């Protein structure tokens, strides 16, 4: 564990002051870059700032391009004091916010726009081969040994290894994973911009087409064309802007780089140490958190993270979800915009936006979590081993 004193210095000193998203779903004629530029422009507008105020850009690089942040700046017409793309998979989006805080704190820039966009729906539907492989990984980056020759393909299988082991160790059931999918769908049905908004029953969940068991189709997040963005600045400046500031109270990262198969990483994920660091910076614990936006690439990952963040004991994630805890009226409303399982998968970016909306507290009553003064967001990815945590509170 690193020195919590150093991290505590940053507590509540920076804020998210603007959020923006693009269209979500099948967006013909869009690109990852055009979606992201839309989301960033919307976020700056939401903050009540002008283009001239933005002097920093942080984005995860897309799957297939180099120098992404330069292309973003070119499209937005911004020469930046600080600009970079980073590479931490689904953990990149929270890492972008953390890096923005660090860059502002170091005096390198003042107002940073962070965002991510992906044209996942379009790219996985371009050809029959793409529809079959559903891979967003460029061919030259795909594994060439110790995987494909054995028929192992895709992120679904990697996470399914974790789900299977969790089931074997702790008795986790398909229905308990289904409780995650059902709760998030209820939330999506109240979110007009969610991509999937049809009612979902446990029967439909259990009988959905099998993909890579133990996962069926409804254990998997939804590929969409979409982007999201946030604007980060100092708390002093935030207090002069349009919205009540959303304080960045804590963040943490951890990376199980020795691999998903190593140690117990498949069942005790990097969320554990990433979360401890975020809690330490924030001076908060699981009991202080009113709602969560957990990285839900697959249902199982929500169960593992509920345990890793200390909302329940290791192995109890399944019963916790099945108790109804994740519903809007439950003990810990989760993924209140529908999550990646229903709203749409943008590598965790939309979960940061939703956390800000919850903390602002100005959502329609049926979408507002009862306790939303402190919301935890998680990011998970890379080769299933990178993790980031973010705690936002009402300033």
């Amino acid at each position, binding site marked *: 564990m690193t020195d919590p004193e150093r991290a505590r210095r940053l507590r509540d000193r920076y804020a998210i002051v603007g959020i923006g998203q693009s269209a979500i779903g099948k967006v013909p004629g869009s690109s990852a870059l055009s979606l992201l530029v839309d989301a960033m422009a919307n976020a700056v507008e939401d903050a009540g700032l002008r283009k001239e105020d933005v002097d920093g850009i942080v984005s995860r690089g897309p799957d297939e391009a180099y120098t992404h942040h330069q292309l973003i700046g070119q499209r937005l017409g911004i020469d930046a004091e600080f600009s970079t793309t980073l590479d931490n998979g689904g953990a990149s989006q929270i890492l972008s916010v953390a890096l923005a805080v660090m860059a502002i704190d170091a005096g390198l820039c003042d107002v940073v726009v962070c965002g991510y966009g992906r044209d996942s729906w379009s790219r996985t539907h371009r050809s*029959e081969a793409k529809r*079959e*492989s*559903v*891979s967003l990984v460029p061919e030259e980056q795909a594994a*060439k*040994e*110790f*995987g*494909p*020759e*054995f*028929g*192992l*393909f*895709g992120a679904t*299988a990697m996470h*399914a*290894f*974790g789900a*299977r*082991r969790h089931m*074997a*160790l702790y008795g986790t059931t398909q229905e308990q994973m289904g409780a995650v999918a059902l709760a998030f769908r209820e939330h999506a049905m109240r979110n007009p911009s969610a991509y999937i908004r049809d009612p979902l029953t446990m029967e439909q969940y259990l009988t959905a*087409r*099998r*993909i*890579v*068991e*133990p996962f069926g189709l409804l254990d998997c997040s939804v590929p969409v064309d979409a982007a999201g963005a946030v604007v980060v600045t100092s708390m002093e400046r935030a207090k002069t802007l349009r919205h009540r500031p959303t304080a960045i109270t804590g963040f943490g990262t951890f990376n199980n780089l*020795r691999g998903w*198969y*190593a140690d117990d990483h*498949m069942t005790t994920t990097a969320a554990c140490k990433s979360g401890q660091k975020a809690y330490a910076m924030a001076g908060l614990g699981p009991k202080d958190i009113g709602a969560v936006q957990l990285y839900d690439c697959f249902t199982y990952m929500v169960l593992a993270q509920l345990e890793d963040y200390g909302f329940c004991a290791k192995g109890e994630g399944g019963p916790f979800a099945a108790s109804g805890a994740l519903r809007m009226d439950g003990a810990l409303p989760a993924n209140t915009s529908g999550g990646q399982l229903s709203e749409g998968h943008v590598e965790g970016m939309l979960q940061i936006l939703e956390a800000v909306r919850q903390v602002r507290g100005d959502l329609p009553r049926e979408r507002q979590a009862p306790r939303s003064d402190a919301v935890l967001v998680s990011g998970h990815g890379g080769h299933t081993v990178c993790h980031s945590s973010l705690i936002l509170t009402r300033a």
Partner: protein
Amino acid sequence: MTTTAAPPIPQPTVESAPFWEAVAKGELRIQRCARDGDFFFPPASRCPRDWSTEWTWEKLSGRGTIRSFVVFQRSYHPAFREALPYAVAIVELEEGARLVTRLIDIAVTDVRVGMPVAVAFTEVAEGTTLPLFRPSR
């Protein structure tokens, strides 16, 4: 679409070439650090534990247990369409290393975490042998 698509063939790196050369001879060999005695995998230029560059390619028993497994019910590659459903497992070898493999000679519904398995060198295409695994007693 043709169902006779060629299966993906492993493309060894400088580091992994000895692994595949051993497999072609019907042997499962992975690196063992000469200093700390650790078996490590995937192949690397240094032992990840003590960064030693002194290691040997040690022949393994080929026995292990299933640490986890998944069952592919959906095709991701034309070469595997005919094989559906098939089980892919992470096998923990007796020597401690963990490998991905495909399971054979067992119904996918009979596979269990913790089940003992043994290597079964199988020629999956002309000139390509893979270390698949099957149940053992």
